[in-house]
């Protein structure tokens, strides 16, 4: 059947994604990003991040989130982007996968949207190898480009 031959398995990390995805959308430096909501534990405002001397460059620091010390990662350093956005962000998004936790920063968080997996497009041809590792897919919605973040990759220790 035609629809079956077009059916693809969308994979993020080692997991095959469901047909319908629930994604949390956030914005950093004018660009929209999205991540599977099942990894998103909470969103916090106005938290002070403490830098940790001698830590890797992609680590912004640590932050207190409900009594836990959580490592804050800089996605842009991980993607080896040259133009790094300002580190003073208002919002922290806490991500969790089983017993692993990290956090990323954002300017603002919008909403949770539902996207059908056939709306996703591989980002391979659009991004560098490093960027593609963290942003495997892109989606378009209402004239906006959304970069889909590979959240499980953020839990990998480098």
């Amino acid at each position, binding site marked *: 059947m035609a629809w079956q031959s077009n059916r693809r398995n969308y994979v993020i990390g080692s997991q095959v994604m469901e047909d319908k995805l629930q994604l949390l959308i956030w914005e950093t430096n004018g660009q929209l990003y999205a991540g599977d909501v099942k990894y998103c534990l909470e969103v916090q405002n106005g938290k002070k991040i403490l830098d*940790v001397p001698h830590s*890797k460059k992609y680590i912004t620091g*640590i932050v207190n989130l409900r009594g836990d010390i959580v490592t804050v990662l800089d996605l842009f350093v991980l993607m080896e982007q040259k133009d790094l956005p300002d580190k003073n962000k208002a919002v922290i998004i806490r991500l969790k996968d089983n017993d692993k936790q990290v956090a990323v920063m954002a300017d603002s968080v919008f909403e949770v949207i539902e996207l059908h997996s056939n709306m996703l497009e591989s980002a391979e041809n659009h991004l560098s190898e490093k960027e593609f590792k963290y942003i495997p897919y892109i989606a378009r919605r209402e004239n906006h480009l959304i970069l889909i973040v590979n959240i499980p990759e953020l839990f990998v220790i480098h």
Partner: protein
Amino acid sequence: MELDSLISDFVSEALELLQKAETRILELEEDYNIEKLHSIFRAFHTIKGNSGMFGFHVIQELSHKSEEILDAVRSGHLPYSRELADLLLKSIDRLKQILADIYNEKNYLISDLIEEITNFAQPSHTQTSKEVSVREEAPNLEILYSEQIKLALEKKLNLYYYLFELLEDSNLTLDELENKLKLVENEVLSRGLDYYSIPLIYEKKISLPYYFLILTQENIDAFETKLGLKAKQKITLHLHTQQKTEEKTNNITTNQTDFLRVKIDLLDDLINLVGETIITRNQLLQRAPLWNDPEGSSILSRMSQLITQLHTKIMNTRLQELSTVYQRISRIVRDTSKSLGKQVELKLEGGEVELDKTMIDTILDALVHLIRNSIDHGIETPEERKKLGKSQEGLISIRASLQTGTVRIQIEDDGRGLDYEKIKLSAIKRGLLTESRAQEISNEELTEFIFLPGVSTKENITETSGRGVGMDAVRNGLKKIGGTIHLTSVTGQGLKITATIPQTVSVISCLLILVNGRRFAIFQKYIAELLQFEEKNYSVINGHGMYQLRENLIPIIHLGKLLYGEDIQSKQQNSYIVIIRLDTYYFGLLFDEMLGTEEIVIKPLGEHFKGIKLFSGATIMGDGEAVLILDVFGIADYTGIHTIEVKTSKEIISKTKERGKGYVLFESSSQYFATLSSSIVSIERISTQSIYHISNIEVIEYKNDIVPIQRLEEIYNIEKQPDQKEKFVLICKIEERYLGILIDKVLDVIESLQLVPSSQHWQGEGILGHALYDQKPTILVDIEAILTKVNHTKFKWLGKVIEETMSLEVK
């Protein structure tokens, strides 16, 4: 889910039974006792039954086989021997392995063990065994001496079957043996050659086995010690204390209903919740002064004490006795000494000392390594020991004790001790020591090299040790839990290792400092001294910053430079130095500002920071912000500071040992006083608003405790001057209580005080003498004596009230 829970309980119980069985098997080798044999049998029997219920047939079969062979021993068809013990231990190991992977139980093969056990139990096996065993073809001693056992029961005495191998064991004649026995009160009921133990004609042994059947009230170990002899074998036929032990066991069985099995995850959750409560409490305490509500503050203060008590109780739930570690150690000593062909006696003391569970796990790893090292490197072979005039059996003793929240474990052996020449050579070879320095270095300093990676005195690497990585890992493991380790040795005589570990870790007292605008915490237990930086005392020698402190030069680490790459020259004025004391050396940390002391809850840093040695964790302050905890050991390792001027550090230690003679000079109502610095636990800066009154007694809060304070003006009738906004309290510990002396300011800390003839006017309680400081008359007082007196008089009733109130609140 329910089945999973039941299986989990079964596994947990089976592991516990196996552990107990293992302990009994090892004990039986030292002292054969039928009751212990029964308990081993019961363990296998219970596991067999329970595993059958769940359909774990592999476990059931192996347990059944082990039970069968034990039954053969019980009925006298098989003697209890070392080979049998080995077999049972193998069986236990295999069962533990299977239990650890219970859901794959069916995949485990046990046919090899089953065959081994079956073959062992064959009559032909025991007949052809060449090893001499006391019970080989011997009648059951309990049956043979049943009359004597009855006599022992009537007389309420112990009955022992004591076997010597004359010429082999002690080189004694029978006369000498007889005389030895007279040293201890006993009655020899029977004696003679143990015919069943006489070596067979093809054996090379020349000794003859001679037994005594002894009736005595002494415990067997005490008996042996008093006798000054070591038997080939000692069998307890009757123990008078046995009945009492059984009653006790029954009582314990009854009392076991008072205990409840609780999952560790649940306890961990409780501890986390209490930790969060402490952080929230700290936040409230920070805000309390702004409320201007004395009643509210008082309620908060009471709540604060309750939270501290709650925390202590919860931490205590995680405490486990060291005896759980000792059980494992006994097995390791047995197996390791056997594999290395050595004979080792293990003495264990202090098994009742309790440690937090996480500490127990770390301690076990460290102890296992140290014991293996001791047996491999330290204890000589029996032949070597005989040539050296030592007993053929080496001795390893482990002693544990608890002192004010710190557990001290001493491991001592009577082996060959450290070979300092070999350590020197190894250190020179690795470039850690120059030839010239090696000429003057002391043995004490050389022991430090044992802890450096790659330093080993063993020529060959064995399965057991020799790679030179073990001691380094042991020390690091202990450091991570706030512990320390120290070695002393006399070549040829043995090695003593002393490890200290905090009993629990979670809430610790810290000094908060500021570096480059960020707060950091340092464990107070490592702080020796705090000073204000003075440029004139600072110099750079061989590229290292050094600080003149009294007569010593101490290496200094500039934290701003270490952490943020700051320029050393900037910000040195108005800085502070904290002198850190680690094991046998000292160094200083230079920082910007001192913020005070606080009790903090330690939180681990994530996996991302694993490679960073400088921090041991983080904490959350009362304002909700995270603060990093400096790891002083990590800083020392990272900067290599312990290799700098070891000689100087040694001088510092010897000077510092005399620090007890140093004096703190202070002022109260314009009168100068001096007191021994060793009397003082800490000096607290307080605001006069934080002084409360309970009846006519002034009190402050210190470490969540209500501490009464005393003014010297009242003791010595000095005219009291109006209080300034800020004052100081000298905190002392008197009879397990904190008490304080309220003063106006601290003037100085000096090493020596020149006493002058005293004026009659200034005689009085607690006055030790008089001196001049800055041309002003200064009274030397013994504040400990003063506070001890008021503790028994003025503060006595207050102590009781506080205790009673707190115990009522807890109920």
